[in-house]
C-alpha cells in the first residue's frame, strides 16, 4: 500500500531515521544474529572458520538424563555400607571413557534421589551449572512476581489517599527505582556484609546478640534469598506507581455507591477495587515476570553466581559464557532459550488472564 504517508513523507522518515537505525542495529539485528549463532560454533575471537553445528549447543545446554543404580554388593549379596549409607558404583566409571555408555559421556550429577528400596536414581545433566541457573531463575521469578506485585499493591493502596504529605511517601517509595541497580547492589553488598554489615548489626542489636552474624551473600542457603529480598525492595516502587495509576482510573462514585450500600473495606476491595484493577494486574504480572527473568546486574555485582553456583541465573550464564568464555554461540543459545521461556510464559499468562465473556 503505497500511501502518501509511507512514500512521500520524506521529512518524517528522516526524523524517524536515527531511531529506526539504532533499533535495527542494536535490537533487531542482534536478535536474529543470536538465533543464527546458536546453531554454529562461533566464538568471539577465533582463527578457525565458523561451522554449522545444528542443535549441538542446545543439546549441550539442555541434555538431561536419569540413571538408576543398584548399590554395590559384596560376595554374599549384602549391600555394602559406607558411613551408614549404601555405597553406589562411581558415576565417573560410567560418564568418563566408558565405551558401553557413550550417551553418558561428559555428563555430571545434578542431583539424586531414592524412591524407596535400595536403588538410587541419579539425574545427570550435560551442563549442571546451566540447570542450576534455570532453577534459580525460576525460583527468583516465582517468589518475586507475587511478592513484589502484592507489596506494590499494598503500598499503592496506602498512598492512594488524600492525606497531608502523602507525596513525601510516594517519593520515598519510588526513590530506589531511580537509583541505578548497580549502585543499589553495591550498597546492599555492604548491608549484607558477613562481619559488620548493617543487617547483621541490626539483627544483633534487636535480639540482644542472640542472632549470630550471617554471611548473607557467602552462604549458599541465604545468598539467593538475600538477592530476592533486595530485588523486591528495589523495584517495588515502580510497580506501585503502575498500580496507583490503575487505582486512579476507578471512578470515585463507585466507591460512594458501595459506601451507601454498606460495603466493608474488604468488600470494597473485593467487589470494586480488584475487578477494576484487572488490566493493571495483567500488565504488572507480565512486566515483573519479564524483568525477573532478566536478573543479571545484582548477581554480577554481588555474588558472581556463587557461592557454589547458588545464585547462577540464565542471563548471568549467557553473558558469562558469551563474553567470559568467549563462547558466543553458547551464550546465544542461552539467550534463545530464555526468549522461548519468556515468550511462552507471557502467552500463558495472557491466556489465563483473558477476558472471559
Amino acid at each position, binding site marked *: 500500500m503505497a500511501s502518501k504517508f509511507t512514500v512521500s513523507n520524506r521529512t518524517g522518515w528522516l526524523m524517524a531515521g536515527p531511531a529506526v537505525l539504532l533499533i535495527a542495529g542494536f535490537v533487531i539485528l542482534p536478535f536474529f544474529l543470536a538465533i543464527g549463532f546458536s546453531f554454529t560454533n562461533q566464538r568471539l575471537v577465533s582463527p578457525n572458520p565458523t561451522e554449522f553445528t545444528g542443535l549441538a549447543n542446545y543439546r549441550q545446554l539442555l541434555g538431561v538424563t536419569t540413571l538408576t543404580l543398584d548399590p554395590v554388593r559384596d560376595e554374599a549379596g549384602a549391600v555394602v555400607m559406607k558411613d551408614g549409607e549404601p555405597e553406589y558404583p562411581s558415576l565417573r566409571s560410567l560418564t568418563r571413557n566408558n565405551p558401553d555408555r557413550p550417551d553418558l559421556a561428559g555428563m555430571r550429577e545434578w542431583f539424586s534421589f531414592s524412591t524407596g528400596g535400595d536403588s538410587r536414581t541419579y539425574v545427570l545433566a550435560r551442563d549442571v551449572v546451566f540447570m542450576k541457573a534455570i532453577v534459580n531463575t525460576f525460583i527468583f521469578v516465582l517468589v518475586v512476581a507475587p511478592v513484589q506485585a502484592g507489596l506494590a499493591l499494598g503500598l499503592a493502596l496506602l498512598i492512594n489517599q488524600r492525606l497531608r504529605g502523602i507525596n513525601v511517601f510516594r517519593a520515598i517509595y519510588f526513590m530506589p527505582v531511580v537509583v541505578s541497580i548497580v549502585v543499589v547492589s553495591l550498597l546492599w553488598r555492604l548491608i549484607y556484609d558477613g562481619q559488620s554489615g548493617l543487617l547483621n548489626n541490626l539483627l544483633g542489636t534487636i535480639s540482644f546478640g542472640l542472632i549470630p552474624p550471617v554471611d548473607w551473600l557467602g552462604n549458599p542457603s541465604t545468598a539467593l534469598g538475600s538477592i530476592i529480598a533486595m530485588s523486591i525492595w528495589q523495584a517495588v516502587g515502580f510497580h506501585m506507581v503502575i498500580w496507583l495509576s490503575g487505582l486512579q482510573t476507578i*471512578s470515585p*462514585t*463507585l466507591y*460512594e*455507591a*458501595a*459506601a*451507601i*450500600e*454498606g*460495603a*466493608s473495606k474488604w*468488600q470494597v476491595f473485593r*467487589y*470494586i477495587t480488584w*475487578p*477494576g484493577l*484487572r488490566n493493571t494486574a495483567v500488565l504488572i504480572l507480565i512486566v515483573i515476570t519479564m524483568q525477573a527473568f532478566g536478573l543479571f546486574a545484582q548477581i554480577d555485582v554481588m555474588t558472581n553466581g556463587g557461592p557454589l553456583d547458588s545464585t547462577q541465573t540464565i542471563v548471568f550464564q549467557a553473558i558469562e559464557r558469551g563474553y567470559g568464555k568467549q563462547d558466543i554461540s553458547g551464550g546465544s543459545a542461552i539467550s534463545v532459550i530464555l526468549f522461548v521461556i519468556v515468550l511462552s510464559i507471557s502467552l500463558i499468562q495472557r491466556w489465563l488472564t483473558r477476558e472471559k465473556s
Partner: protein
Amino acid sequence: MARISLKDVKKCYGNAHVIKGVDIEVEDGEFCVFVGPSGCGKSTLLRMIAGLEDITSGQMTIGDKVVNELPPAERGVAMVFQSYAIFPHMTVRENVAFGLTIAGASKAEKDAKVAEAARILQMEHLLDRRPSQLSGGQRQRVAIGRAIVRKPQVFLFDEPLSNLDAALRMDMRMEIGKLHNQLGATMIYVTHDQVEAMTLADKIVVLKDGKVMQIGAPMELYHNPANLFVAGFLGAPSMNFIDVTVQAVNGTKALVSNAALDPVEVSAARGPFTVGEKAILGLRPQYLSVAEGAGRLHGAVALTERLGAETVVEVTLKDGKPLIAALSQDRVFPLGAAGDLDFDPATAHLFRPEV
C-alpha cells in the same frame, strides 16, 4: 417512618461556605426536589444527607435518629447517581443484588428481590447483560433497581436524568413519578431542570448560593414566588421583569407605572413600598394577552416564534426593554407592528428591587 429534618445545617470547605445554614423538613413519603442553578449547593446538600459529605454544623435527622455522625450505610438511604455508578464488571443482576450480596443475603432471597425490582422497572430481559451492553436509559434503570432492591426508607436522586436525551428524560421522569407512587418512600431529588422539579415534586426547595430561597408546593412557588430569584427561576419562558415606579400605595395595593406601562394597581404583599420608589413588576409570559384596542403595555413586535400550539412573541417596549409573551394558539404578527399587550393585574407580582 422516614421524616428528614435539617436544622441550620452548614458546610464549609476551609473558608468557603458552601451551605450557609439550611432548614428543611421533608415529610414521610414526600417527594422533595432540590432545585437551583449549578453551584448552588444542592448536590452537596444531598450528599450530606447521604453521608458522603460531613456536616460542618447544624443537626440532621432521618426518622427519629440524629444522623450527623452516622456512616452512609446506617442511614437507611439509597442513592442514584448522575453517572449511574454501575459496577462495570458485574452483570445487571449482580449490580442490582449488590446491596444484598454485601449484607450476605441467601441466593434465593437475592433472586426473589431482584426479580421483583426487575418487574417494577420492566427490565427482566436485561438481567444477564453487562453494563457495557446497555443504553443510558437502561443503565439508569439498573441504578434505580439497585436502589429499590433494599427497600430503603429514603431515596436520594442526584440529577439522575441529566445524562439522558430529551425524549428519554421525559419517559424516565414519568417512571420515577410512578415509582414514587408505587413505593410510597420518601424521595429527595436534585435537579437543575425546573420542569422536572415542577412535575415530580410534592415540595420544591429552591436553593441559591447555599441558601434556601423558598420552600413550597410547585404551584405555590409558581403563583406566589417569595422573591425575584424564585420568580425568575421557575416557569418557561421565564418571568418578565419590568422596572417601574411606585405612584401610590393604598393599603395592600400599589399603583405602579413606567414609560411603556400605563398606571396599574397590583398587590403590594411583598412590600413595604413607598411612593416614588423603584420597584420591579413581574409578569409571566403566559398571562400576557394581545390587547383588543389599547392595552396597558405599549411596544412593537420584534420577533415571533411559532410553536404550533403556542406563539412566543418578543415585544420591544416603548422604553426599549424587551418583553416576552407566550400566547396560546398559533398567531401571526408582522415584524415591527405596533403591539399593545394586556394582563390581569391579579397575576402580576411586585417585588422590591434587590440590592
